[in-house]
């Protein structure tokens, strides 16, 4: 039986990553550095810091993701692989979704490994319902990855593309980051109900995933 194209793309990306472990290692180390640097910059024993740990977690994830998303399509540029993929039967969106799912998995693994370090470095105590984080963080990660993979494809044929990606990705991502930070902080401090922000994050994900799917074909084949 023939596998759907999206799974073929996903399997290919996972296999390459499994053999090289480039993206996950780099992301993990980078996120760890951000967490450590923030922990040095602020005083982790300060009880007031509790309010900001959610923000630091989200920003660490964001920086780690941006640093690796820059490389998402670089591999496809070697030996004109991307041009070959444009000529295959597989639709552009299969390629896109495969890429997004693969990177979503990498980033999720990084987050799971990062979590214990976070608890240790910041003496983290979650006052609210900790399981809510299992909804918030994947929603935020999806928002980051879906837009990140899209804009990485958009900036791949431009001058100074590694500079351009954060410049165009971050403004679009700000509403999601805001929702992610506020809801994570709400859960950690237990001070307010994160419900409305989780809904906002879900709506953001739905809207931007749809827009990405509608426009990816245009970006992939943009030549004039």
């Amino acid at each position, binding site marked *: 039986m023939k596998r759907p194209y999206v799974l073929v793309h996903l399997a290919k990306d996972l296999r390459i990553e499994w053999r090289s472990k480039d993206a996950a290692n780099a992301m993990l180390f980078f996120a760890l550095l951000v967490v450590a640097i923030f922990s040095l910059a602020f005083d982790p024993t300060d009880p007031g810091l509790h309010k900001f740990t959610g923000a630091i977690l989200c920003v660490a994830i964001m920086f780690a993701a941006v640093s690796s998303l820059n490389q998402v399509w670089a591999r496809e540029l070697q030996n004109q692989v991307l041009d070959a993929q444009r000529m295959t039967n597989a639709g552009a969106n299969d390629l896109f979704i495969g890429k997004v799912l693969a990177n979503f998995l990498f980033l999720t693994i990084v987050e799971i490994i990062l979590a214990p370090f976070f608890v240790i470095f910041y003496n983290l105590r979650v006052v609210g319902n900790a399981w809510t984080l299992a909804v918030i963080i994947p929603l935020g990660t999806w928002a980051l990855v879906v837009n990140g993979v899209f804009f990485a494809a*958009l*900036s791949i*044929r*431009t*001058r*100074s593309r590694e*500079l*351009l990606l954060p*410049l*165009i990705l*971050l*403004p*679009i991502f*700000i*509403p999601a980051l*805001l929702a992610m930070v506020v809801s994570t902080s709400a859960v950690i401090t237990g001070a307010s109900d994160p419900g*409305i922000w989780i809904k*906002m994050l879900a709506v*953001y994900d739905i*809207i*931007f995933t749809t*827009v990405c799917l509608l*426009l990816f074909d*245009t*970006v992939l084949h*943009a*030549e*004039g």
Partner: protein
Amino acid sequence: MKNLRWLWLLVTLGVLAEGFRVAMFVVPPDAAQGDVQRIFYYHFASWCGMGLFYLINLLGSVAYLAWRNSKPATALKADSLAVTSAEIGVVFCTVGLVTGSLWGRAVWGIWWTWDPRLTSTFVLWLIYIAYLLLRRLAAGPQMRTLAAVMAIFGYVDVPIVYMSTRWWRTQHPQPVFFGGPNSGIASSMMPAVWWNMAGWMMWGIWVASLRYQSIHNEQLAEEEDTRQSLETAL
């Protein structure tokens, strides 16, 4: 065409002068805020200008994407229109942010607050600057396609901005139109709103027509260059 443009400018200046007179001397001061509320007539006009030009930017970008293969000449015009309106939209957005900040200092006592509506508008400002940056950094004809895609992303953020006042608790006053009961402004103040809105829209359209002309000429020159270098290569 040239005469029409000058005539338009004269009328615009007239409307703006009348708008200034009505806003500053004719309509009554706000009951609670006093004279400082008069900056609102400029603030509101800027948001309307921003809304109009970002909308034109979206339409131009969509038109470019739709026609880029079938009608290249029309598509090129649509693209000029898109970049023109993005630039003017950013100018209006900047004026809106500055006037809002001045008003905030007088009424709230702070220059800026990370209130959702302010935040979202600031995000819009960043997105359209990113759009203009992308146009600079991307090279070749594909830049127009990529920029058009980016413009659609930017505009998707606009409804989020507008709805944010309802989704989130906010410090910003309720919107003037469709804000529900107890929002909006007194009817005695409406003349100042209309005159300034009309005047600033006309000003925007006048600048847009100049900018459109110059951008379109640049594009045509670029196309001609490409054609000539292709011919020499052959």
